[in-house]
């Protein structure tokens, strides 16, 4: 009797322990890596029998709880750069709005699904692959290779540095320990916002590598700041989805968030014990696994040639 709970907006009954376990596992990863976990949770919920539109919207609601818990934990540890986070949020909102219009136009032309699928595979592949190789090299501590690479690509690195330094309004971000123009995180925020809107996710797994590699922020500040940014993105999505589509299932979200907030706390604790490179290589592995699974679903003939609207 107690095992199954009815989810009114999803219109289905589902095992509480299964939901709690899913929430806990994804919340753990959220606290560990500073990602919202939407790119993992939504497909898992769909597999558990939740309609895709309800899965995505309710997941945003539970991410609000997980990222509140995670941001609070990281704030206590001094790992949140609020100044950087607010600029990224502004960029993310602008980018998200542009992305929504872009997807609307593509849908009208009938190319939306193709663009979404390709964007997913390319972004997951590039980010996961780059993080994996970079972390592996860093863990193996091959200074010779690193030196050779630096010597072979001096123009590329200096061009990027020159470009970053040439931007106006240079500003010091104390928590992150970097000095750069606020235009930089603003533009990157717009870019991530566009991708997040196209892919229908919070964008944490794109934002984390952007902060590490393009804004040169230390990994532990990246995780806390990313969670802070995701919190605001998901608050916006939850309210918008509730008003326009009525797809936020509060019962589903509460069970998931109880699991995810607990999981996030354990994730944050473990993140302090792991080195930055270990964190990066773990995240890279998960991103690559999701990419391979998605690529396989694109290449292999599906069991059914009909699907409900809303899924990718």
């Amino acid at each position: 009797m107690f095992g199954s709970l009815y989810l009114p907006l999803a219109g289905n009954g589902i095992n509480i322990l299964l939901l709690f376990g899913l929430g806990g596992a994804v919340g753990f990863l959220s606290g560990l890596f500073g990602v919202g976990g939407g790119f993992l949770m939504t497909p898992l919920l769909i597999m558990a029998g939740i309609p895709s539109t309800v899965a995505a919207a309710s997941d945003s609601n539970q991410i609000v709880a997980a990222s509140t818990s995670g941001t609070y934990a990281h704030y206590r540890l001094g790992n949140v750069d609020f100044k950087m986070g607010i600029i990224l949020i502004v960029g993310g909102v602008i980018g998200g709005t542009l992305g929504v219009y872009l997807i609307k136009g593509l849908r009208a032309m009938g190319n939306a699904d193709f663009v979404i699928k390709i964007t997913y595979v390319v972004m997951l592949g590039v980010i996961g692959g780059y993080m994996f190789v970079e972390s592996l090299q860093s863990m193996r501590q091959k200074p010779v290779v690193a030196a050779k690479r630096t010597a072979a690509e001096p123009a590329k690195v200096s061009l990027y540095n020159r470009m970053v330094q040439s931007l106006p309004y240079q500003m010091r971000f104390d928590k992150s320990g970097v000095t750069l123009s606020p235009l930089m995180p603003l533009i990157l925020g717009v870019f991530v916002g566009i991708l997040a809107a196209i892919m229908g996710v919070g964008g944490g797994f794109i934002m984390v590598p952007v902060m590490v590699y393009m804004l040169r922020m230390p990994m532990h500040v990246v995780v806390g700041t990313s969670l802070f940014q995701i919190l605001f993105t998901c608050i916006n999505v939850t309210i918008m989805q509730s008003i326009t589509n009525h797809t936020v299932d509060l019962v589903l979200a509460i069970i998931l968030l109880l699991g995810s907030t607990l999981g996030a706390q354990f994730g944050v604790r473990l993140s302090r014990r792991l080195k930055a490179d270990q964190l990066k290589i773990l995240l890279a592995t998960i991103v690559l696994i999701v990419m391979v699974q998605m690529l396989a679903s694109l290449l292999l003939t599906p069991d059914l040639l009909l699907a409900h609207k809303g899924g990718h």
Partner: protein
Amino acid sequence: MRRLGYVWQRIATILGLLLLTIPALVWGASLDLKVTPDLVEIGAWFRGHRVTVSGMIPPGAEAVMEVVGQTSDEHLMRKGRRGGLWMNVGEIDIHNAPSLYMVMSSNPKLLDTAVSEAPWGFAALKRRVTLSGMIDDQEKPQFFDQFLELKGSEGLYTTFKDPIKKSRAADDLVPVKGEFRLPTNVKPGTYEVCLTVIQDGQVSAKTCGELQVKMVGFPAMLTTLAYEHGATYGILAVIIAIVTGFAIGFLFKGGGGH
């Protein structure tokens, strides 16, 4: 003269059909169809529900029982290959498809898909349901089968293997009983429950009753709030999430020193 002959022919056909229907109408009244319970409530702990359908049929007859949901149009996506990749390539609209279709019989042969003229079963659905949108005429049978498979995978279209149970005859009638299990994803609404009697390979009687499925208690309250006060619902969802996030964070504060 020729036209008059044609009219007489039509009248004779109609009278013939009416005569064939009379036994069905007479028997329809005495089939004694019972649906137990006739009201299923979806509460917070709803896990699906068993519904028993019972009735009386003449000795030697066979029975078919159906539970049919309200019909509506569904908009689904068809998958196809573009540039070597599988993805959604267009919309297919399914018209007149019931939200739920369950069928069982006293003789499994009656549900054989080869019996395509029968007014029950998936073959009968195929005659009622139409497909439109990004689909050619020759593709329609294939995509109807895909539709059945999709609904079957969701537990909404089912052919029950357990046949209808027949008891010992009483008062020259045989009591029949069938048990349907409504799935957890059954939608609230009115469902038609029908008992069809088959004698000598022909439908001799049919009677239908109603089954109500209603959302009650907390799920009903939440659904009303979500649909009628979307903004309040959204803000409430965010507040609950933030408070829970802080509460859990605060609980872990004591042991969180690193």
